[in-house]
């Protein structure tokens, strides 16, 4: 398998920069995810690596060799698209076997060898029973697995997978995700994986590149993407509920710098965070405003006062998860969430009840403002 390197790759559609100076390395045997919202340029990058889209400027190298001028069939990549692209007149077996028969790869498998390979990958993905069917008789989820099987049946230089499990239902998505991770580990495959689902990106990848408007916003291991997002943009893209973000005034009170949002919430900023807060702050309406981020699991809730820095807010709503509850609050027109683990049964908090909240200073962070919070969904 190959190492894939992108050097300042740019793609222009007319005057629109779909991809803007992206440099990225996917090491041999690495699982790299390209993650971001719709329209960020994820698929365009994948298509340039595959050779389906020409590169406007920059270079793409496989094992140090530039491939810019090579057509797709000479790059030896295997690709699965979100849109399946199955051959409608071929049954599932022939669709999956297709890449094995392409003369270019010179595999020249015997009938029995081909059967074994197709059968193995089809059974692995749970579509072993469907081999005789035509695509038109398959559900969307089944078609997607056939498309994935066709991409995985052969060993290329690199696997390029574009939202390959986006259309599976939740249960099947999780199990197929585990299978993919298994596959990657077993064959030490170089995989570049495009997704807009943060769960897939975190669970599958060795590293994640977060894309924003054609540029890389953050490139890191999944743990860093989750715990140390570089921006409010990344924080908001990851997690369900996403990272809590709130804007507040920086005010001086009793000789301490405090972060104040709304009337009831004034938080003394821990000394270790002062520098980062000041660096991120901006002038707004004659005051200094900063943006605070904290994940929902780091907000403690109680009916009694928790600490000197805790404050009170009324509950907006409570929704449940299997082993936890998410309590929603509204502060200065922005929702934020606190997750409560329920080792001992469900929480009995009520809507409109005032609770004490305590933010874990270890897990608070400040960001420059790069997205609108008030742009309500």
């Amino acid at each position, binding site marked *: 398998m190959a190492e894939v390197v992108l050097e300042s790759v740019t793609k222009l559609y007319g005057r629109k920069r779909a991809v803007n100076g992206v440099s990225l390395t996917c090491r041999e045997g690495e699982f790299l995810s390209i993650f971001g919202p719709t329209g960020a340029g994820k698929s365009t990058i994948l298509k340039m690596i595959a050779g389906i889209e020409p590169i406007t400027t920059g270079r793409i190298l496989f094992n140090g060799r530039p491939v810019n001028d090579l057509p797709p069939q000479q790059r030896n990549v295997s690709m699965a698209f979100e849109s399946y692209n199955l051959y409608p007149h071929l049954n599932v077996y022939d669709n999956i076997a297709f890449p094995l028969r392409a003369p270019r790869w010179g595999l020249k498998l015997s009938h029995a060898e081909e059967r074994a390979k197709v059968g193995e990958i089809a059974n692995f993905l749970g579509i072993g029973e469907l081999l005789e069917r035509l695509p038109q008789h398959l559900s969307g989820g089944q078609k997607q697995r056939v498309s994935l099987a066709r991409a995985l049946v052969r060993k290329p230089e690199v696997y390029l997978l574009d939202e390959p499990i986006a259309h599976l*239902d*939740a*249960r099947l998505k*999780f199990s197929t*995700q*585990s299978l993919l*991770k*298994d596959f990657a*580990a077993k064959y030490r495959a170089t995989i570049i994986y495009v997704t*807009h*689902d*943060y*769960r897939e990106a*975190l*669970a*599958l990848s060795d590293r994640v590149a977060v894309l924003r408007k054609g540029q890389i916003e953050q490139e890191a291991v*999944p*743990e860093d993407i*989750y715990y140390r997002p570089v921006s409010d943009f990344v924080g*908001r*893209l*990851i*997690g*369900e*509920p*996403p990272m809590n973000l709130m804007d507040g005034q920086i005010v001086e009170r009793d000789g301490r710098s405090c972060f104040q949002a709304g009337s009831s919430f004034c938080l003394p900023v821990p000394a270790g965070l002062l520098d980062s807060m000041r660096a991120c702050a901006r002038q707004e309406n004659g005051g200094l405003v900063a943006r605070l981020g904290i*994940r929902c*699991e780091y907000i403690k809730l109680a009916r009694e006062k928790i600490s000197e820095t805790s404050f009170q807010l009324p509950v*907006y*709503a*409570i*929704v*449940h*998860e*299997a*082993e936890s509850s*998410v309590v*929603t609050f509204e502060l200065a*027109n922005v*929702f934020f*969430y606190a*997750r409560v683990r329920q080792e001992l*049964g*469900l929480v009995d908090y009520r*809507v409109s009840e005032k609770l004490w909240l305590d933010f874990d200073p270890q897990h608070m962070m400040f960001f420059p403002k790069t997205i609108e919070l008030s742009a*309500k*969904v």
Partner: protein
Amino acid sequence: MSRVELDKVWKIYPRGNVVGVKDLSFTIQDKEFLAILGPSGGGKSSTLRMLAGLEEISRGEIRFDGQPVNQLGPAERNIALAFESYALYQRLSVYENIAFPLRARKMKKAAVHEKVMSIAELLDLKDLLKKYPSSLAGGQQQRVSLGRAFVRQPNLTLLDEPISHMDQRVRAEIRARIRHLHDEMKNTTVYVTHDQAEAVSLCDRMVILHKAELQQIGTVEEIWSRPANRFVAFFVGEPAMNFLPAKVEGERLTVSSAQGPRRLTLPAAVPAKYSGKELTLGLRPQQLKVHRREPSGDSLPGKLRLIEFQGETTVLTLSVGGESGGEMKAVVAATERFETGQTVWLSAEAKNIHLFDGEEAIFKK
């Protein structure tokens, strides 16, 4: 706002004599938030359509506050509906979309205005009232659709998959809003979904339908801790419950592992008729403790095969080996670090052990 009863309700589609809903009885309490959950083809949509009056009831009776409604059409039943596909009137402004059900009931202009403004306040729609649906983002359209469903107090509010297709940034907010609306307005609400996470997050109680039949009705806690059968046990919860073949002798249960047979203590003695029989042990990944060294009590060893980071938590996949060759998943806090290939031991509290004879659960509520 009504108490809604389904009494031995059947839906039989004459073409092909297909049973859509089989002998279904349950009650939706006044002001309750009830979810109807199940895989597609399980009977959810038929039930929803019969509740709404969009489809005839083949047999049995549906009653609102004790009054049969079988013969009443949708309008006469006084029902509000919100669908997955918004179904907003494209040529009406947001204000008029929300006002529509009120105007259809010939409410006075001043009263309409008051109602629309109060629901717009609740759903943060005030700045959008003059806009048209086509200029709104998906989440905004969904809020308008919810506003229209909750603007009046009908006998029953039916929500059909209103958020399952929305993206994760929006979902948390819409969930909170729906639950807030319900708590404020106290509408009797039925939420139909195939997504167990949605049902769990929002409802007071849920009805689980599969193969046209009622599988279980209960609070989330009841269904989570004592599922009636293997289907329910598997369907609710993500990652799903682990199953392993097992045998029992009194209060002791035996499963096979790569390190030979292991014993677990059950929450209660099992009737003698199950002794020696092939049963299925069920353990929820969320309720397993993972140990790096063999603990002193009961435990099940396994080799760590996959580690999937999920953010706050990590999902581990282990092969237990032994005759069953079984695989187990366990959820741990993301702060706990493990390596693939490592041997770990799983333990569970007795109360979290589930046992099935074929499909049926042995420990019931």
